[in-house]
């Protein structure tokens, strides 16, 4: 790996985004719109928004980053830029971490905007700090991105890539504790949710919601999310083959 190449690759991905104002606007504004919708849905029961709002702050970045990363990586494959990059001195990890950092920056902006709206306008109540909420949301975004990079290897068209979103993201969202507390789920669903990394992101956010100081469980869960992201990145490195048929 080379720090210069990593930095230039990060810059290149951010520059591509900067030429695509509509995507940036959607990434930032869309979660705000959905959050607003949820707020008014539970306007009469603010304690429910405290419960759901904080989870949504973690789920949005996960889903959106999964989607845009898998499409971005698919484009690298289908337009031949990936094959070309792999004939240059660029290391696979320069490319993967370049995407990771660039989209991580975007996710931080997105999470801050979401947290700003939830705390500022909708009076979200959490025992812990907003900074921790943003930190976990960014880790979540990086996890979504890493899974997106990995699953894009199995899609040969943008149609297929989009379908991986419901396949990979929806079950994790359903079972993460957003709709039903995990301890009320059937045994096999509970077991399934145990192996989904998003579960731990949501649990970490709930810990911040319930405790004034960061708890050991929160740090452990954050570690699991980060570990799952690193694992997915390593697996995606294995899908980047220099030699193909």
């Amino acid at each position, binding site marked *: 790996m080379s720090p210069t190449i990593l930095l230039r690759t990060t810059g290149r991905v951010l520059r591509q985004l900067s030429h695509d104002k509509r995507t940036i606007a959607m990434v930032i504004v869309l979660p705000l719109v959905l959050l607003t919708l949820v707020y008014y849905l539970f306007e009469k029961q603010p304690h429910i928004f405290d419960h759901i709002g904080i989870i949504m702050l973690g789920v949005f970045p996960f889903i959106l980053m999964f989607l845009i990363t898998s499409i971005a990586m698919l484009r690298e494959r289908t337009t031949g830029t990936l094959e070309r990059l792999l*004939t240059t*001195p660029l290391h696979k990890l320069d490319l993967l971490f370049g995407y990771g950092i660039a989209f991580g920056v975007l996710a931080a902006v997105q999470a801050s905007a979401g947290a700003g709206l939830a705390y500022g306008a909708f009076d979200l109540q959490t025992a812990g700090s907003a900074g921790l909420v943003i930190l976990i949301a960014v880790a979540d975004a990086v996890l979504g991105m890493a899974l997106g990079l990995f699953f894009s290897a199995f899609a040969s068209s943008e149609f297929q890539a989009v379908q991986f979103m419901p396949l990979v993201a929806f079950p994790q969202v359903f079972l993460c504790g957003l709709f039903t507390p995990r301890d009320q789920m059937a045994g096999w669903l509970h077991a399934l949710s145990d192996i989904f990394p998003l579960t731990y992101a949501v649990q970490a956010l709930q810990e911040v919601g319930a405790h004034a100081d960061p708890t050991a469980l929160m740090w452990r869960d954050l570690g699991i999310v980060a570990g799952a992201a690193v694992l997915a990145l390593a697996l995606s490195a294995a899908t980047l083959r*220099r030699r193909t048929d």
Partner: protein
Amino acid sequence: MDNAIEVRDLVVVRGGKEVLLGISTAVRAGKVTGLLGPSGSGKTTLMRAIVGVQRVRSGRIDVLGQPAGSPALRAKVGYLTQAPSIYADLTVKENARYFASLYPGITKADADQAVRDVGLGEAANQLVRTLSGGQHSRASLACALVGKPTLLVLDEPTVGQDPVLRDELWQRFHALAAAGTTLVVSSHVMDEAGRCDRLVLIREGRIIADDTPEAVRGSADTNDLEEAFLRLIRREEAKV
């Protein structure tokens, strides 16, 4: 070193079909070698094998004294794919500067020069997706030239270019060769064959001719290269 590339008994199978059937050839250093043949003859596959992105069944390719695809070669080999492979949502200059940043010792000024070298100085700040087809492939070419490679592998670099630009590009290729760069250029247009120092004609995964344009004309007993290739192909078929 006389040979920049040595190919021995190369067999490549793609999708269950043998695309290259045990070919052997050598590419002289500091020359422009033309790879000619109809679409589907195996030109692109051979080029991909040379730059080390093609999985090969058997045989051996040495590039600049090392096995094709060796990490040490990545800073020395420039590759232009047949379909332009650059970022459509970046400007021409941003593309060239990004690819420049991947090579040690290559500066932004080098990148801007490469853009001018392919005649895109005026369009440098244009987004690639707004370019015409010919400009798009020249922008891609700029990104292959930018690393100042020792070996340039160019897959159909002049397709869709206007005749004046095509002439300029060929002059540039020869200037690069004169400065010591080895070039492998594929084409399916026979009028470009005469511009090469050496020719390799591929048909259905086999090499039919591998010589200088003069020698190819001589062996087929005609001055027209198109006609020469036709005669060589018929002669080959008569043998079978």
